[in-house]
């Protein structure tokens, strides 16, 4: 290559490197100079995660050719501040909780720094504009805007920015805040190994086609190509979640555009791509089907010859393209409708949506001398991925070691391996470390999406507002593979009545294969789909019987002792409190101006469980290590609340416990991150492990102090006799002794696996442990001429049971609101004939800081009956109600019916035209 010397100033120091005309500034920084704090989220200037300062101006380093900065001054996140010596912008971000997954954080810091270099106290609008190029999927921008406000107002204090008070209920600073805000955190694509080569996946260009022939001989001969793998030379088995219908390479035929057909590794990514283009695959196109209703017709093109041949963990009747169906009945639906004064019917549709993590999928694999394969990857489920790899590639589970890196946002998008098998196979074949990263374009069809839904509702209501009958037909389009389709339907069925008491219910769930991109488990699977349908329907019912929508909700809202449709008896139900607080905060009773409206929506959700094990080990100096096999995908539950609970269980300051991040060889097993389980499940486990080691410490001390264990207490750094602090022994001494005497640490252990929640009915999921409740309200205005919606303000009320770390709870809520508002207003994967038409952040739109309305989070703390400290999960629920709340505010503002999301200006205009006709 045509190499040239580039001289420039980098973070205040002269730098001279060799680059080619193709080298982007981003590549030069990351690959040549090892400055991996600058991230690549898209490479097309649409996300801002690669922001650097070029001669003082914030720019996307992906859009600058390295040679263009000759003689210029470049500042990266590494030149802004470092742990222990943070820049004021970084202090503000840490102080206000503006950091979650941390992937967008360096870019965000650079944009804010550039703003504060110009103005010492910018107004809120200036802040929103300054960061409007920097997409954040986790925070909803609210705490970042608050950080800027606090900094401008002089309310940021270097000494107190980091809060190490780990008491339950204290907004302690997450342990990884400093490494993230300074760009030091290592994400999957930051992994660099000696002799590492690069891999790409060759994907199907057809939605449905027979593979007639495959010839990679020309590609194999290209200089730099090190390995090619495909179905022909890979021993594969089916794998999946509940439904095992997926293999890592298409065999004999392809079922969606983007399905992996082969993988190539070469010395550079460009050579790998070029080689992939030289693989000759002959296809014969087959008739395809894209609409799930059409797919269920008798004469529809069949995706899978025999769907009954696939293992499915749940009972169901399958045929044709119908890969799962379920039915839940309660009461007598016909009797219910007979009792009704009014029957309200409507159909609601939601589109395919993307998890939208700013960090793309990236995996690096390496084979060791024993043939074991290590995979560094961005995953929510390290242990499940090890299992997936073993099953998919028919190897013993011990073949694989998964090293989870920092996760730059998960949202369910990192629950299923989309690169790991290929990286592993290529690394094995090439006997070289292989790194693979999805381009943003591939992200949109090479990963699993949120199921599009069509929901038909028919509801009987009495004139006084009593809901008496509710018939639901849910149809989910799962795309070419079932994977998480059954689970989405099952979860959605639990949402099908909303949090309302309806005595007579009939729910049908259908999941159909089509030749679309397959769908998976995206944050709160089924939740936003059903919250849109059910909550918009409640408002439609309210209009039909001329009742206030809030009053209708309050009249039918669950109370303690009510049952869900699966027959779970509910306790600690707070839905009325949530609704009332949301209504009060949005001034529900105040009159609206013309063109303005308010909407309210409620929902309920699970607090996850599934198994985990936590260990707490003593160090010889009296400090501790918390070892769990779970990973934090951004929210910070692991790096704050779980530690707070461990500290509480032990009775020591939180900063005397180090969180150990390891791998599947060294960590205790864990189910994985998802299902709003971090604080509820891992927190409980950590607390119990802490209690276990505390018991051991007290026993050790009892020996030393010649006292009974029952007379001892652990206070901070010592064990003392109750009422006689002078009689004490330091933890450092106890632990040192123990290490010396027994040759090892004390180990506290807790394995958690909750009993299934009892239900009266047979249901694939059954009941939710510690169900959580929420209500959201929004105020907006609509321009009827264009259909544009302007969000004025937003209120989200969540019953979290017990806010272990309030700032973390709020961050989850605000981020969920942003994601839900995205679904409500602009997010939609547009497939035409199975081709994703908007594969990137330029056209798959996430809310920007300018779009996010001022948002108030209100925490309700009605303790759950089960679980530690009454905690209820808050990870997923906030994303569900915004779809319903926005729809209802629109209905309130301009008296239209809603039928589908997103409510783009065009969709709103269409609804206005329907109203007018």
């Amino acid at each position: 290559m045509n190499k040239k010397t580039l001289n420039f100033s980098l973070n205040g120091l002269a730098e001279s490197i060799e680059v080619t005309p193709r080298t982007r500034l981003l590549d030069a920084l990351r690959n040549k100079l090892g400055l991996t704090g600058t991230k690549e989220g898209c490479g097309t200037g649409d996300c801002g995660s690669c922001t650097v300062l070029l001669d003082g101006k914030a720019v996307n380093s992906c859009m600058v050719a390295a040679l263009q900065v000759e003689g210029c001054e470049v500042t990266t996140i590494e030149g802004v501040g470092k742990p222990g010596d943070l820049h004021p912008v970084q202090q503000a971000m840490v102080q206000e909780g503006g950091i979650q997954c941390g992937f967008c954080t360096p870019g965000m810091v650079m944009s804010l720094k550039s703003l504060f270099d110009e103005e010492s106290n910018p107004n809120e609008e200036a802040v929103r504009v300054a960061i409007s190029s920097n997409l954040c999927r986790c925070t909803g921008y609210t705490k970042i805007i608050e950080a800027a406000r606090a900094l401008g107002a002089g309310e940021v204090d270097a000494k107190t920015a980091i809060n190490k008070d780990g008491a339950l209920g204290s907004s302690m600073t997450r342990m990884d805040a400093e490494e993230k805000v300074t760009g030091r955190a290592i994400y999957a694509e930051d992994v660099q190994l000696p002799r590492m080569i690069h891999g790409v996946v060759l994907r199907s260009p057809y939605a449905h086609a027979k593979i007639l022939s495959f010839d990679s001989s020309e590609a194999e001969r290209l200089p730099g190509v090190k390995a090619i793998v495909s179905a022909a030379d890979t021993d594969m088995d089916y794998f999946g979640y509940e439904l095992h219908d997926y293999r890592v390479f298409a065999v004999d035929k392809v079922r969606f555009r983007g399905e992996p057909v082969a993988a190539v590794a070469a010395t550079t990514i460009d050579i790998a791509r070029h080689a992939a283009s030289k693989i000759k695959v002959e296809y014969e196109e087959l008739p395809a089907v894209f609409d799930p209703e059409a797919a269920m017709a008798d004469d529809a093109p069949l995706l899978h010859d025999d769907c009954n041949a696939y293992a499915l963990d749940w009972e169901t009747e399958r045929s044709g393209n119908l890969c799962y169906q379920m039915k839940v009945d309660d009461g007598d639906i016909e009797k219910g409708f007979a009792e009704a004064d009014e029957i309200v019917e409507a159909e609601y549709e939601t589109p395919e949506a993307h998890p939208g993590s700013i960090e793309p999928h990236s995996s690096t694999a390496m084979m060791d001398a024993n043939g074991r394969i290590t995979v560094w990857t961005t995953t929510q489920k390290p242990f499940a991925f090890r299992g997936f790899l073993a099953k998919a590639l028919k190897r013993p589970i011990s073949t694989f070691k998964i090293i989870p890196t920092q996760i730059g946002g998960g949202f369910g998008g990192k629950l299923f391996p989309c690169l790991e098998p290929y990286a592993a196979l290529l690394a094995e074949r090439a006997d070289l470390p292989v790194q693979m990263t999805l381009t943003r374009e591939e992200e949109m069809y090479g990963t699993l999406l949120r199921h599009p839904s069509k929901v038909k509702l028919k509801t009987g209501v009495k004139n006084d507002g009593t809901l008496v009958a509710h018939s639901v037909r849910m149809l989910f389009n799962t795309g070419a593979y079932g994977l998480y389709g059954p689970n989405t339907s099952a979860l959605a069925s639990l949402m099908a009545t909303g949090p309302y008491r309806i005595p007579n219910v009939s729910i049908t769930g259908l999941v159909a294969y089509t030749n679309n991109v397959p769908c998976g488990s995206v944050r709160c699977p089924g939740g936003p789909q059903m919250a849109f349908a059910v909550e918009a329907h409640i408002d439609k019912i309210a209009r039909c019987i001329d009742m206030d929508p809030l009053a209708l909700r309050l009249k039918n809202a669950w109370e303690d002792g009510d049952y869900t449709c699966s027959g779970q008896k509910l306790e600690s139900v707070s839905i009325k409190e949530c609704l009332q607080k949301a209504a009060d905060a949005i001034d529900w009773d105040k009159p609206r101006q013309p063109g303005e409206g308010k909407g309210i929506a409620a929902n309920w959700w699970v607090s996850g469980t599934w198994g985990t094990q936590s260990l707490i080990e003593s160090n010889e100096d009296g400090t501790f290590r918390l070892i769990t096999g779970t990973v934090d995908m951004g929210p910070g539950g692991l790096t704050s609340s779980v530690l707070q609970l461990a500290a509480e269980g032990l009775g020591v300051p939180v900063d005397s416990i180090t969180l150990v991040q390891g791998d599947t060889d060294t960590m205790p097993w864990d189910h994985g991150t998802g299902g709003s389980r971090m604080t509820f499940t891992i927190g409980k486990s950590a607390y119990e492990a802490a209690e276990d080691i505390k018991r051991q410490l007290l026993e050790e001390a009892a020996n030393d102090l010649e006292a009974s264990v029952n007379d001892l207490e652990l206070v901070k750094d010592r064990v003392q006799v109750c009422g006689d602090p002078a009689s004490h022994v330091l933890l450092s001494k106890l632990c040192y002794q123990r290490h010396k005497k027994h040759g090892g640490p004390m180990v506290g252990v807790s394995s958690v696996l909750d009993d299934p929640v009892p239900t009266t009915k047979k249901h694939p999921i059954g009941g939710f442990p510690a169900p959580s409740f929420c209500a959201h309200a929004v105020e907006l205005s609509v321009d009827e001429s264009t259909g544009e919606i302007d969000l004025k303000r937003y209120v989200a009320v969540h019953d979290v049971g017990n806010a272990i770390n309030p700032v973390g709870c709020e961050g989850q809520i605000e981020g969920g609101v942003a994601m839900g508002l995205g679904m409500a207003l602009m997010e939609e994967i547009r497939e035409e004939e199975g081709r994703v038409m908007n594969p990137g952040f330029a056209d798959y739109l996430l809310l920007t800081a300018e779009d996010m309305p001022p948002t108030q989070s209100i925490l309700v703390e009605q303790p759950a009956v089960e679980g530690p400290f009454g905690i209820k999960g808050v990870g997923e629920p906030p994303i569900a109600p915004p779809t319903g709340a926005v729809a209802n505010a629109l209905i309130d503002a301009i008296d239209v019916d809603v039928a589908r999301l997103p409510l783009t200006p065009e969709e709103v205009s269409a609804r206005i035209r329907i109203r007018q006709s």
Partner: protein
Amino acid sequence: MINDFNFVQPSSVAEALEALSTNDGVQALAGGTNVMVNMKRAPLQTECLIDLSKLDELKTICEDDDCIRLGAGVTISELLNWKPGGVVERLMQPMCHAFAGPLIRNLATVGGNVCDTSAAADLSPVLLALNASVELQSASQGSRMLDLRDFFQGVRKTALRKDELLTAITFARPDDDARCFYYKLGKRKADAISIVSIAMILKLDKDIVSASSIGLGAVAPVALRAVAAENTLKGAALNDDTISAAAEAAVSDSSPIDDFRAGGDYRRQMVEVLVKKGLNAIKDA
């Protein structure tokens, strides 16, 4: 296979023109917000990349009482901070604010946005409404001026010859009493691609329209002037009937496609809506 190419960093426009004339396949690079994105999608196939970002000659804004000349290398951020007053400022400010986001505004240039020839390019409707011309230079034939309308020739097609460089945009400063309107309709508030964008300048003699220019973006293969609408307005009293007629005429001026960003029908409706919105705002101003 992936070819090698040269990177040339001329120190003057003359050098840049020389490089353009002596190389066969040449790609000009200024802000990089188009070129570098394309490079991410597929390896750039060119002989030579000419970096214009160091050419101060292209970064000046010259204005006198009558005429304004924007150097092709002026960034959108610089345009946003520019305070020319009058109609020019009232059109440029909202357009620049709606132009992508601040990071891209710091890189993207006036010349790059025009040469990209996207029908949805944010600058185009404003420049069309200002009756702008482009200044094109080449080593062999010197400088020529071309009406912007003639510069845009079709989808991603311009009148720029292989050896030419767009060096500036020029336009006459509208009269102080001219009135204007700008609107960009997109799917979100920042960093949006326009569904329809419109810029209009009207000259009123009492309530009679003596002159009008309406630029429309994203409603045809290239950004265009709503000529039929302008003809409807010329010499007419600016009342509800005229406004409706002009709005309908503007719809006939446009020929939007259906795509995943918006349907053609919606775009046509919005042309009508936004022309009405603009003319009403001007009438009531």
